[in-house]
């Protein structure tokens, strides 16, 4: 109930500010104008198209980075020397804003989905590797001693002990890096694409249609929350509950 009250409060502040003459109508569209523009964009089919385009880009870039980043983190976590060797490099790239790669992304991959995949990958790969790696490096040694008693070795050790021991932390870092991906996609699409939610905002800006821009912003926020809810469901799996309850 409380979140709804906050939301209604925010909406009414917005409404009252928009009916005063503090800002001209084109600079601060009213909730009503945004609702109208939402209807317009839906009927034109543009919004749906942009949503699908953005979701697809984030999904591909994010899955690619998880498929490479989690195994890389598992490996680095288990090998102290490799960790030592790679840590400065990983940290360097982690602090490099993914947006800095935009010019390269466009020159290397031209306009379309590919530069967006690349930027999402660059934004999420390094935090995922680092989080997985440090999770593995801090697994209590008692688990490995028990594993040795019961003859877990090689791949079985990785699948049955190392991976489940860090799964709760991996899920958390997936949620965090998914958040980064969703922020980055908007910027990536502003420059590297011909459609998508980011491109929609960019186009609205060019046409000075801030009502449409706000409508896109709201969709971005709501979709981001929605997908995080989905990822949150992973934390309810019975074999990871321990990681959140102790």
């Amino acid at each position, binding site marked *: 109930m409380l979140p709804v009250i906050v939301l209604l409060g925010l909406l009414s502040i917005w409404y009252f500010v928009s009916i005063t003459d503090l800002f001209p109508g084109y600079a601060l569209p009213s909730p009503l104008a945004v609702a109208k523009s939402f209807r317009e964009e839906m009927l034109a089919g543009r919004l749906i198209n942009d949503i699908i385009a953005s979701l697809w880009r984030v999904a591909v870039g994010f899955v690619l980075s998880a498929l490479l980043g989690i195994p890389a983190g598992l490996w680095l976590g288990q090998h102290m020397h490799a960790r030592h060797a790679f840590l400065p490099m990983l940290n360097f790239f982690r602090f490099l804003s993914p947006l800095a790669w935009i010019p390269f992304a466009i020159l290397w991959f031209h306009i379309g989905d590919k530069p967006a995949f690349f930027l999402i990958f660059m934004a999420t790969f390094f935090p995922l590797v680092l989080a997985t790696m440090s999770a593995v490096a801090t697994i*209590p040694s*008692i*688990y490995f*001693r*028990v594993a*040795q*008693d*019961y003859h877990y070795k090689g791949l079985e050790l990785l699948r049955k*002990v190392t991976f*489940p*021991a860090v*799964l709760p932390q991996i899920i958390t870092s997936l949620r965090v890096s998914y958040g980064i991906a969703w922020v980055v996609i908007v910027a990536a699409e502003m420059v590297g694409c011909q459609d998508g939610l980011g491109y929609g905002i960019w186009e609205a800006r060019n046409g000075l249609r801030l009502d449409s821009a706000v409508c896109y912003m709201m969709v971005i926020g709501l979709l981001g929350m929605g997908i995080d809810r989905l990822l949150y469901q992973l934390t309810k799996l*019975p*074999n*990871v*509950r*321990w*990681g959140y*309850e*102790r």
Partner: protein
Amino acid sequence: MKDKSAVCRLQLERVSHSFGQVSVLHELSLVVNHGEVVVLVGPSGCGKSTILNVLSGDITPLSGLVRREGVIRTIHQQDGLFPWLTVSENIAMGLRSMENTAHREREVSDLINLVHLEGFGHHYPHQLSGGMRQRVELARVLAGDSDILLMDEPFSALDYQSRVRMRRELIRLLQLRPRTVVFVTHDIEEAAQLADRVMVLSGRPATISCELLIDAAHPRDLTDNAVIETMKKILKELGL
């Protein structure tokens, strides 16, 4: 159960070990006989756990000989269960070599019943009390082909009453499924109640300052004469 008399053997011969400058074990010799419960008592920091780690193979001593035959499993003080596995799955860890699924499941449920955890097979360790978790540990080490159990203060994280109850539980389980046990504790009451043989350790580097054979039958009550006599001797040996 197959006969294990020939397989299990545990022996230290003039074993010395040190961490950096600190000598922890000095020329320590110890033979553990088949089916025997040997309890090592001593003040904390005297090197009891190091002895267990040498016996388990986690530490290779700097000098001396370690003979170790048979399947060895360790029960830790706490948190030795895999939290991502249910009670049944934890117990089944030692039964992975059993091909027949039906046999394996029957063995798991037998073990669950043995430690009185009927109905908890699908629970996860974090949903159980400390005492229940240690009972799962007992069931787990007893599963399958284990010969030797190393116990590193397995009940010391429990409250007093659970601790007393768990001692009785351990004796009962060992009567049903005999194993060779090396048990480390600082609790002299525990030592006197459980042991066939008590080794009192002193100082650092750890040396065996006295060895007490207790031939009173199991289970022993805390107030049994043999137990009280043994406790007196241990206390005296420790200078308390």
